[in-house]
């Protein structure tokens, strides 16, 4: 069973008083907007008696705390919430009577999306009861899964999970060192110890790290600060420490360290069940360490996943941090081999001999030959409204050296070999 208290007239005292009242009955609370709180009544029957007796006890203690609002008790949190918001005083809904009790409520009291509200109004649906009467299959067809969810709420059969609020917990440690450290190795001992303490705390609260912030005091110099973002939440101390170590080795502090501060931003750990027929995937923590190690070799900007940009500019892409947790959506297309181009970055400057308006011979670094076949020119230009405008004429040429290249001419009358088809 769940109880919901809704206070229509909110004052400065309302929120703390509501919380104080709710914690007298349950260790878990769920806030449903300002002035509305839901809490579980599990296990209270043996202590206070029936639902009506529990309700009168909540009302009595509410009066003591000067909480003036509506109280509703029901077997599911959605029904309790609807009743508390819409019925004055105390409402105890016996199991099985949810639909009947909510049926006369005006449908406009249900916080539906505007479009859905308009659709129901156009169908002549005026009350919760009328909405509940509609055939579920028809509701799904016309309003989607979201419509069905709202219909269940109107029926008093909401199946949403109760989401207890968590207290905002700070995962933070700070140590002022007795002697300044000008070497990374002893500093790592200090950081490792602090990270282990923090991960124990994370584990105790059932959360994982989304971000790790290092704040290394450097005496009279500004602090050396580093923030590590993790695409997948981590809780393993070894992984967190290794990532911090690799980051500090790549970006060492410039002065001796006098204080070490570590703060962790928590988030719920990722829970995913591996399927029997799903492809094997790298272990997320191990992959993040591997990518950090690779970043230390090739640079942070040279490792990640490519994302195409929505522009016609040639070779426009973004390299984003790789996230192994990205959900997989197969294309289900028939496999086919498509023409691929290997891009020269930067493009190779070329000397091009023109004959009858098209390239006849091309000479560039590592590429020389007579043009056997060609296609083009294909003109491309854009972004002329910015400083980074582009304009080019592209040709596809087959050379006597056996290669098939893409060459382009820029407005400054310079030719380049952009890439080779392979």
């Amino acid at each position: 069973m769940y109880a919901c208290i809704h206070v229509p007239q909110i004052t400065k005292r309302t929120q703390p008083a509501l919380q104080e009242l709710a914690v007298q009955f349950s260790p878990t609370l769920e806030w449903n907007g300002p002035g509305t709180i839901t809490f579980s009544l599990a296990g209270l029957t043996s202590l206070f008696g029936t639902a009506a007796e529990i309700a009168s006890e909540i009302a009595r203690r509410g009066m003591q705390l000067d909480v003036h609002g509506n109280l509703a008790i029901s077997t599911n949190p959605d029904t309790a919430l609807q009743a508390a918001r819409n019925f004055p005083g105390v409402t105890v809904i016996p199991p099985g009577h949810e639909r009947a009790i909510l049926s006369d409520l005006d449908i406009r009291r249900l916080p539906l999306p505007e479009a859905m509200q308009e659709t129901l109004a156009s169908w002549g649906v005026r009350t919760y009861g009328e909405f509940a009467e509609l055939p579920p299959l028809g509701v799904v067809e016309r309003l989607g899964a979201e419509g069905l969810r709202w219909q269940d709420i109107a029926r008093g059969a909401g199946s949403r999970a109760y989401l207890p609020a968590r207290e905002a917990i700070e995962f933070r440690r700070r140590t002022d060192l007795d002697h300044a450290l000008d070497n990374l190795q002893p500093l790592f001992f200090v950081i490792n110890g602090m990270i282990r303490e923090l991960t124990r705390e994370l584990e105790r609260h059932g959360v994982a790290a989304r971000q790790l912030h290092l704040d290394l005091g450097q005496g009279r110099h500004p602090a050396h600060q580093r923030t590590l973002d993790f695409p997948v939440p981590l809780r393993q101390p070894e992984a967190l420490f290794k990532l911090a170590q690799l980051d500090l080795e790549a970006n060492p502090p410039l002065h001796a360290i006098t204080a070490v501060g570590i703060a962790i931003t928590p988030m719920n750990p990722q829970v995913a069940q591996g399927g029997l027929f799903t492809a094997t995937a790298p272990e997320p923590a191990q992959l993040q360490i591997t990518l950090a190690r690779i970043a230390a070799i090739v640079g942070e900007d040279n490792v990640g996943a490519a994302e195409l940009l929505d522009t016609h500019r040639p070779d426009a892409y973004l390299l984003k941090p790789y996230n192994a947790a990205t959900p997989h959506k197969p294309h289900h297309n028939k496999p086919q081999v498509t023409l691929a181009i290997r891009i020269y970055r930067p493009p190779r400057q070329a000397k091009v001999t023109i004959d009858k308006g098209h390239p006849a011979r091309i000479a560039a670094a590592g590429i020389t030959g007579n043009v056997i076949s060609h296609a083009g020119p294909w003109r491309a230009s854009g972004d002329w409204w910015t400083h980074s405008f582009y304009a080019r004429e592209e040709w596809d040429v087959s050379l006597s050296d056996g290669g098939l290249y893409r060459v382009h001419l820029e407005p400054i009358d310079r030719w380049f070999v952009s890439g080779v088809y392979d």
Partner: protein
Amino acid sequence: MTAPAPLLTAAHLLKNQEFTQTLAPSGVPPCDASLGGLPRGAITEITGPRSSGKTAFCLAALAAATERGEHCAYIDTNLSFHPHSASRAGIHLSRLIWVRCRYDATHALRVADLLLGGGGLGMICLDLTETPVRLLQELPTHAWFRFQRALTNSATAMLVLTDTPVAKSSAKAALAFQPAGARWQGPDNARLLAGLEAEAAARKPMRSPFRFACRAL
């Protein structure tokens, strides 16, 4: 009295392992018909000159792997990977780790070593194409044995893309590509590049050559 069934020895089991090794579909039907796919837990060396279709083959293999939901990696030694071509080939870019090694083949080997050590990837493509031969010859030979050892008993298929063979005896499969001509369409004044014909000879294991077309989309 019948003779007892022969006992299986470790040598037999090792020998049979050759045949039971799993193969990853390459995404190129003629290759799958000829070789059955690309061996997992082993190096496949793909060589060929420019415009021989080796990159298109490699992208098709990565597309098939990412389509299966596998996480893959592309080690791009000479910054030549073209994400648009990869996307057109059907690669799920969010499933492909792209590492740009800024023309440093030694870095590329170190990156490959780290990725193999991490495990869990379905396919790793080490692209050494257009790396000067002198630099390729300077690469430590033991690196390929090391990769071979790291791949043993893993489900990772490693593709090494080069102009000339480098992995040699460490590669379990070797494909040599040859250009078989470009395909053009349309009249001279409005001609379009329609694609590329490629021919691959399976050197290891020895199989008859297969041809395929790379179509321009």
